[in-house]
């Protein structure tokens, strides 16, 4: 100790000790504090992977809160569609997208395993609770596309249907910032 502090150091040993002590206390306090105030939630979520969500808390926070569901207009002209599949409904029940632009679909389940199948095609997106299924779609022509769940999910399974309404690009409503489109917006 005498060697380290005495001859070569102008700062007395006790200040250095104090600094080390304060730094240790700060770090030790920071760790439980981040956990207590759940400040580390986003970090943990990010570490868990961006494809994972809590199926029981979709409505409380995160990507699948109510006001974020539906069609989002991206800057590059493409759209992002976010949906929830649950026993025995797709939410939103009717999706509005413009024709001929890339559609990034992001869908998750609130309960069981479902699938989003486009009727009269064999195209099928499997949806599982806890993870986000992604699909890249594009609808060349305007029209109404019926969708259904093709993964048996319980008593109301056969009524689990919804619709994608494709409109010509110029008829797609201009969405304000933060606004999401669905058929009601048309």
């Amino acid at each position: 100790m005498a060697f380290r502090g005495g001859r070569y150091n102008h700062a007395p040993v006790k200040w250095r000790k104090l600094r080390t002590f304060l730094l240790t206390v700060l770090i030790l306090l920071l760790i439980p504090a981040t956990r207590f105030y759940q400040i580390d939630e986003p970090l943990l979520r990010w570490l868990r992977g961006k494809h994972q969500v809590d199926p029981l808390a979709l409505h409380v926070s995160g990507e699948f809160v109510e006001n974020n569901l539906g069609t989002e207009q991206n800057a590059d002209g493409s759209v992002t569609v976010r949906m929830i599949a649950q026993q025995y409904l797709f939410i939103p029940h009717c999706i509005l997208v413009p024709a001929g632009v890339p559609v990034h679909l992001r869908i998750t389940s609130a309960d069981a395993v479902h699938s989003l199948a486009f009727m009269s095609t064999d195209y099928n997106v499997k949806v599982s609770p806890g993870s986000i299924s992604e699909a890249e779609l594009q609808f060349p022509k305007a029209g109404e596309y019926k969708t259904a769940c093709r993964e048996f999910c319980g008593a109301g399974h056969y009524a689990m249907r919804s619709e994608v309404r494709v409109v010509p690009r110029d008829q797609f409503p201009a969405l304000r910032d933060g606004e999401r489109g669905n058929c009601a917006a048309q």
Partner: protein
Amino acid sequence: MPRSRPNYAFSRARWSAAQLVVLTLLALAVTALFVRAADNPSDHVPSFVEWTPETIAQASSGDPFRGMLLARHCEHCHGTEGFSDKGSTPNLAAMDRLALWKELEDFRAHKRVAFPMNPIAEDLSHKDMVDLAAYYAKLPIFYDPEDKRVFPRPLPGLAQKNMAWRLVTFGDGERGIPPCQACHGPIAYRPGAPSLMTQNSDYLLAQLEAFAHRTRANDINEPMRTIADLLTDEERLALAAYYGSGLGMQPGSSWPSK
């Protein structure tokens, strides 16, 4: 030989002081960033209830005896036996306890806005709600000719009855309406979906319209807002009349109609 004193020890100490400041600032900045990312105040949250196993266990752990004492304050409107004498006030007898508890929590948090329940629920503690739910869930649904309950209403006409029966049992696959009984029983129950079998028709109709107009928006992930919106006016009327006359009870159990 006298050695010249190098100053590095001192500069090292200065550096660590600066480090301390930078570290603290960094921690604060990152903290602020995460706090902002964690809750977005513009999000519409329908209800703070999450049906985790712990929530379900806690909401089911009430003490019905304590609930009975507390229910004195509710009798005036919801009836001494959980059957109301006003069609617009819901019957609570034998209501699913998770559903009852969730509604009280939502009233308390103003996630469901309905006079007079918001101020009433604000005065209840979390334990009170759990106990009240346990009590009302235990009440029997026997018919008592002595009291003035409005349930059951007279049976609806055949056309109305058939329209409702189809929706209750099969839903409508074409329009994507799932059958009511897949969530409200008796086929299957979803947590928080009350059994509608002994509910007043006026109240049911008012709730279906409120969901359709989104003046009631506390259903988690929007099942009821979506379904009520897809139903036509006649269908909502028929469904309210169907359940409100006791037709929703399982086949086999007979219910005396007035």
